[in-house]
């Protein structure tokens, strides 16, 4: 099969949906808007599925049991070029898409989860005035996200990268009449600019050093052993800055909690499942660069571990249900970076996939709770909801168990893969493993805290009109819950064997994680680590149980006993305030006084004023010429004619030396 795969259909279908709903949506009846909005991602998902089955037959998909490379029907990576984009001297950039195992996995997640969230949104946004606008933005996001994922070179990826940032901005600021939402949108956009600056510098350095932006060519050039450290490290660190902006890592994570101002399905799709994982995808896509720079890799790992721990501690004390999930997302993204930091890219991508499933589930369940409570997001005013929202309660339980890492749920497999990969990476890796394990404890604690506060105990707020969500919202929840249970069963070894052609086989693959054989008493290392991880998760549950079920008063006592610590956490380490004082305030001051007053008013305004003054002055003198006196005009005319005649007829060759001589003498020589 050598015919084209028509990869262009995948982004273009959502784009068509965006155009239809964006231009005509306000005039179309609502059912038509819904149809268009749902058909676009569904069709894209269909194309992705069809592509999958044209690349791998189902039989081969089933024969993954032996961890060898999975044979593909087509030769992957497969590049489809849609024309030449930029030609500048030696630089040629094509508009090309690439299909390989990595982009296939991402496409399945983006379009699959994306479609489910579209379905959910139909119920969630049904009463909203901006119904068509919402869906056109959502489709626009899918367009750019699929461009990002399919990109065959870094520049096309950058187009998608900026595009998802735009869609994110539009959707965070969806309720733009609310100042906090508009501000949050701006914050996300501006913080991402800082990251994009790093990405752009990396692109320029790539062009300067490799002369190409095509992923496959970069990889093949990096195969020469001469490339090591140095400029490669600089490029990798710049890329990391970009990834940290998009994937909300330290120190650029600050926009993600505020991004919760957007509608909840948006938080699920963009700010949990797909867009924020673009950074991890980018690192995995450009992994040859990182592989060549151990220093950059360690930085990636440290940033990831620090972010995971940092965000998890903040998540402990948040009271807004969506903010808890937001900090949890940052923390989980930190896990993925940690995996990339130990070159276990496929473990990172594995966690990306399972996280997309259970975090989308958790966000959508939170949306269902908020929907049922009529907009209430404060955990302190919930409680006892399990009776009124039984299905939401059930799926949230699945999500909590999955993210905490309990055995048959998805999070267990991916988190363990990361922890195992870290543990086997020498002493530095052990440190990452320890941080990751402690973060897992915190994760388990704050997720069960959310669970207890929202669903168990006694109602603490007004719950008169609480109602379970419609089926259009519950159906995606149930599907995602089933996937959150089963998504990990594929196992890291088969997953990394599948991804190996794309991200390399440097992953330390556990010999047998699934099914866990208990035929012998001797525990292998990975089994031991798994058991430790589950015990830690249980411990987190136990602590949450103690504080939020058995002694509901004790959290307040603990907070009172440690006022400093509690304030620090509740204030989110005052990072926003710190940035405000160190970056924003000086910047505003500089803009206002130096740029505003000195440059704008002083230099620019002064220059304009000076030009105007010169013109006015010259005009004041020259206006005397225009006396209106006919005879004076005539005199000037005659004088001009005389001057012209003199110029043409006078023997200048003779005159000039005389004139210069005369001036010379007059000047006193």
């Amino acid at each position, binding site marked *: 099969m050598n015919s084209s795969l028509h990869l262009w259909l995948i982004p273009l279908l959502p784009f068509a949906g965006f155009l239809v709903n964006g231009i005509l949506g306000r005039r179309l009846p609502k059912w038509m808007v819904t149809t268009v909005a749902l058909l676009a991602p569904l069709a894209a998902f269909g194309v992705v599925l069809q592509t999958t089955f044209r690349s791998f037959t189902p039989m081969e998909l089933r024969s993954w049991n032996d961890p060898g490379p999975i044979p593909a029907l087509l030769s992957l990576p497969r590049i489809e070029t849609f024309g030449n984009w930029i030609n500048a001297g030696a630089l040629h950039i094509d508009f090309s898409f690439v299909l390989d195992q990595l982009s296939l996995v991402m496409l399945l997640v983006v379009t699959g989860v994306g479609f489910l969230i579209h379905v959910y949104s139909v119920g969630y946004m049904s009463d909203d005035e901006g119904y068509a606008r919402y869906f056109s933005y959502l489709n626009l996001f899918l367009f750019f996200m699929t461009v990002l994922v399919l990109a065959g070179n870094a520049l096309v990826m950058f187009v998608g990268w900026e595009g998802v940032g735009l869609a994110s901005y539009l959707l965070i600021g969806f309720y733009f009449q609310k100042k906090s939402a508009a501000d949050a949108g701006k914050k996300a956009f501006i913080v991402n600019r800082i990251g994009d600056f790093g990405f752009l510098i990396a692109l320029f350095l790539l062009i300067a050093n490799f002369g190409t932006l095509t992923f496959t060519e970069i990889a093949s050039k990096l195969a020469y052993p001469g490339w090591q450290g140095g400029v490669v490290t600089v490029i990798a660190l710049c890329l990391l800055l970009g990834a940290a902006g998009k994937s909300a890592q330290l120190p650029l994570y600050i926009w993600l909690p505020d991004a919760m101002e957007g509608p909840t399905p948006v938080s699920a799709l963009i700010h949990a499942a797909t867009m924020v994982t673009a950074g991890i995808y980018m690192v995995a896509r450009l992994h040859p660069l990182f592989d060549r720079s151990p220093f950059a890799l360690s930085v990636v790992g440290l940033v990831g571990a620090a972010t995971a721990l940092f965000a998890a501690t903040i998540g402990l004390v948040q009271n807004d249900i969506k903010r808890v999930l937001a900090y949890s997302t940052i923390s989980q993204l930190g896990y993925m970076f940690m995996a990339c930091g130990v070159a276990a890219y496929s473990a990172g991508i594995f966690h990306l996939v399972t996280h997309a499933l259970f975090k989308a589930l958790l966000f959508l369940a939170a949306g269902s709770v908020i929907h049922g409570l009529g907009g209430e997001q404060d955990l302190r005013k919930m409680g006892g909801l399990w009776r009124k929202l039984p299905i939401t309660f059930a799926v949230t339980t699945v999500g909590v168990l999955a993210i905490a890492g309990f055995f048959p749920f998805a999070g267990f497999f991916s988190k363990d893969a990361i922890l195992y990969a870290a543990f086997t990476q020498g002493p530095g890796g052990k440190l990452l493993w320890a941080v990751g394990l402690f973060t897992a404890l915190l994760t388990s604690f704050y997720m069960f805290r959310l669970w207890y506060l929202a669903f168990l105990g006694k109602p603490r707020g007004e719950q008169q009109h609480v109602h379970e969500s419609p089926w259009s919202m519950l159906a995606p929840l149930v599907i995602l819950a089933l996937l959150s249970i089963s998504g990990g069963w594929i196992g890291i070894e088969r997953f990394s064997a599948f991804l190996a052609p794309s991200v390399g086989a440097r992953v330390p693959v556990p010999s047998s994680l699934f099914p866990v054989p208990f035929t012998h008493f001797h525990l292998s290392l990975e089994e031991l680590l798994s058991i430790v991880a589950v015990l830690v998760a249980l411990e987190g549950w136990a602590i949450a149980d103690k504080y939020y079920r058995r002694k509901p008063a004790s959290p307040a006592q603990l907070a009172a006993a440690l006022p400093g610590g509690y304030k620090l956490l509740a204030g989110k380490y005052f990072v926003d305030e710190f940035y405000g004082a160190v970056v924003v305030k000086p910047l505003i001051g500089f803009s206002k006084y130096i740029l505003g007053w000195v440059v704008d008013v002083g230099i620019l305004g002064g220059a304009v004023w000076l030009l105007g003054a010169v013109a006015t002055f010259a005009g004041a003198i020259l206006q005397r010429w225009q*006396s*209106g*006196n*006919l*005879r004076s005009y*005539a*005199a000037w005319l*005659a004088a001009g004619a005389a001057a012209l005649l003199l110029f043409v007829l006078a023997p200048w060759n003779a005159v000039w030396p005389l004139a210069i001589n005369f001036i010379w003498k007059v000047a006193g020589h």
Partner: protein
Amino acid sequence: MNLFAQEVPLSWYLLLSAALFSLGVVGFLIKRNLITIFMSIELMLNGVNLSFVTFAHQWHQVKGQIFVFFVMMVAAAEAAVGLAIIIAIFRVRATLAVDRIDRMKL
């Protein structure tokens, strides 16, 4: 020897032409009456006409003569329009002294 049988030299014609033109220029510059200025313009035109005819005769070319006809024709048209304007100005301003006609608006 018939004095008149002899050709008048070219330079005489040209000197006359230059004199007429210069008289026109000076009149244009120093006179205040609009009609006199107008007449000075005619004088300049005719000074030029004379040199055209002179050269046409000298070089046995008819082009110069034809050009003179054009100039006369344009001068006639110009005279018609110009006099009409002068009359209009006189009706409004009640004067023809150019020094006092220095505004476009009324």
